[in-house]
């Protein structure tokens, strides 16, 4: 099966970091993933991962230097902080990590050089967040990208594949449910999919976004989307390796993703949608359709 351009960024990251041994670890002991990179956040992509859990110490993912901190509402001359109280650490290889929504008053504002054993704050709920959770972002200064932290963190146990709850074709303003209608009209259409990942075993709290989606039409790959990294393009943050889609071009609504345009011509059409989570669990959906008109 054709898999397109997967792993391109992973290769770049490996190439970039190959000069030294990487010993990156999770910032908290109890890791319950409740938000994944690229997820829908109202009007923007989530630029990191969110870890739910009890009030617990937060450690650097790797040794480094604290280069910036902000305490929620403490500094009268600071911009309002949707990230709440947060800390930024500079690591080697132009890598920076951001730890957001830390508990108020818990930040270590005295240390500069920190190791993975140091506590930089307590997991909290400050700023624009729907509950107690740590948001971890990783910024790659070499490529000017915000990268999916799961690309660097040790893998989590996850045996559950993302679910494909619905597939639709949008033609003009007509939305067709492909579970119900098997005969389509010819012309341009946008393929939409409602995909939710119910997470790893025992760690399910909230549905997560899929990591990668491949779409094949009559055996040919027509779309490849992956949540690997975000970068700025024409004044908007876009998902790289996913046709540089901006938030409003990627998401149709909170759970429905635009998988790309299809040129529907008369005849049989076999659509194959493969949805994959970060652990590599795949869900495959095959639809046999007809285009008549």
């Amino acid at each position, binding site marked *: 099966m054709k898999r397109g351009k997967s792993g391109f960024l992973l290769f770049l990251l490996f190439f970039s970091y190959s000069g030294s041994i990487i010993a990156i670890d999770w910032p908290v002991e109890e890791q319950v993933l409740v938000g994944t990179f690229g997820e829908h956040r109202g009007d923007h992509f989530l630029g990191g991962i969110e870890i739910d859990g009890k009030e617990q110490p937060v450690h650097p993912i790797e040794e480094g230097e604290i280069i910036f901190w902000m305490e929620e509402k403490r500094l009268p*001359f600071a911009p*309002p902080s949707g990230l709440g109280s947060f800390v930024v650490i500079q690591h080697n290889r132009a890598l920076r990590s951001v730890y957001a929504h830390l508990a108020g008053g818990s930040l270590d504002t005295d240390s500069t050089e920190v190791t993975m054993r140091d506590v930089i704050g307590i997991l909290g709920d400050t700023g624009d967040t729907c509950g107690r959770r740590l948001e971890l972002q990783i910024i790659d200064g070499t490529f000017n990208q915000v990268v999916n932290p799961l690309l660097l963190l040790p893998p989590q146990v996850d045996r559950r594949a993302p679910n494909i709850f619905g597939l639709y074709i949008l033609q003009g303003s007509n939305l067709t449910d492909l579970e119900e209608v098997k005969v389509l009209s010819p012309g341009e259409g946008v393929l939409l999919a409602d995909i939710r990942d119910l997470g790893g075993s025992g760690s399910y709290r909230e549905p997560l976004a899929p990591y990668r989606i491949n779409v094949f039409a009559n055996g040919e790959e027509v779309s490849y989307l992956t949540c690997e990294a975000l970068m700025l393009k024409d004044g908007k943050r876009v998902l790289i390796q996913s046709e540089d889609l901006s938030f409003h071009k990627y998401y149709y609504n909170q759970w429905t993703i635009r998988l790309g345009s299809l040129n529907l011509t008369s005849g049989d059409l076999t659509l194959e949608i493969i949805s994959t989570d970060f652990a590599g669990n795949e869900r495959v959906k095959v639809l046999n359709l007809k285009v008549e008109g």
Partner: protein
Amino acid sequence: MRKRFLFPLFFILLCSYLFLFPRPMSKEFIYQPVWSRDLHIASIQPIEGPVIDFRLGNFFGYVHEEGEISVLDRVTYDVVMDEERYINYSSVSDHHVFLDTTGQILMSVETRGYPILSSGRYFTLRGDMVSLSERDDEGELLWSRDFQSIITGLAVNKEFIALGFLDGDFLVLNSRGEIISDFQPAGSRIRVVYGVALSDDSRNAAIISGIGPQKLSILEQRNGTFIPIFNLELEDEFRRPVYLGFSDDGAFVGYETSGGIKYLDFSTGSLHAVEFPGDLLSVNFPGKGSLTMVVSRHNEWGTLQIFEPGGEYAINQDFLGSLIDLKRRGKTLYLGIDNRIERIDMVER
């Protein structure tokens, strides 16, 4: 219980000090207490007219020149205020509800993020701090744009908005949201912007950036863009947002230091220091020939310093109070300490 009686007592002592022991200056002033209001027992009179906004901890409101309290409310998560309107917003919000200075709803704007009211302009900084938008007085979107990096510093005047970023970049945007100036302060081991400022007349911008060393850069507007004209290596290395601001007349630029603030006189190149312990709370910095006022806090003590730039102190007074607000309207001061607000007139002798 004891504190409750101590605060008014210190307030009275402060006012007595101001009244009885004015210091000589090039112009002599007497500091004359006019009225004092206890917010715990003040009655609310939502009447129209010029007001002064105040924020004391979890309470905010508007007070009239003659001491009537027009609005007194509890902060939901945070509040932004100017002299005509305010938004009292929650930490997760998809609407900004504008109220006027009598507490009446003006409009509700559907937007996600935290509001900023400054120089009569209204911005929304998105929750992830990498996107900014501006709306007009009717709440209509004027422009919106994402940025590469987290915004760490922001300064607004009527013409421009200056932004500093975690990646060390500094941008100036015009009122259409277009980037007119892009500058990366160089020469530091770590690149981060910790403070930005814009002069009211748009002639100058300033940046505090970097670690190893930390530097102050002054930029001047030439041919529609801002170019660096001056660099100063700083003794401190803050790793958090810092105060940086121009005087209202643009003659000075002031910046936070570990022991107070320093201000640079552009006309002479001289640097002056104002020392205080603890955190800087507010600076009122009109410029040459005018009195500068600085309020700071150290534990449960506040310090009010009034001085002429380059000249002597008129006042350097500590007082008990952890919640402090100072506003100035011409020769009138409105000083809030904990649960009280006081009007003090500066009367020229």
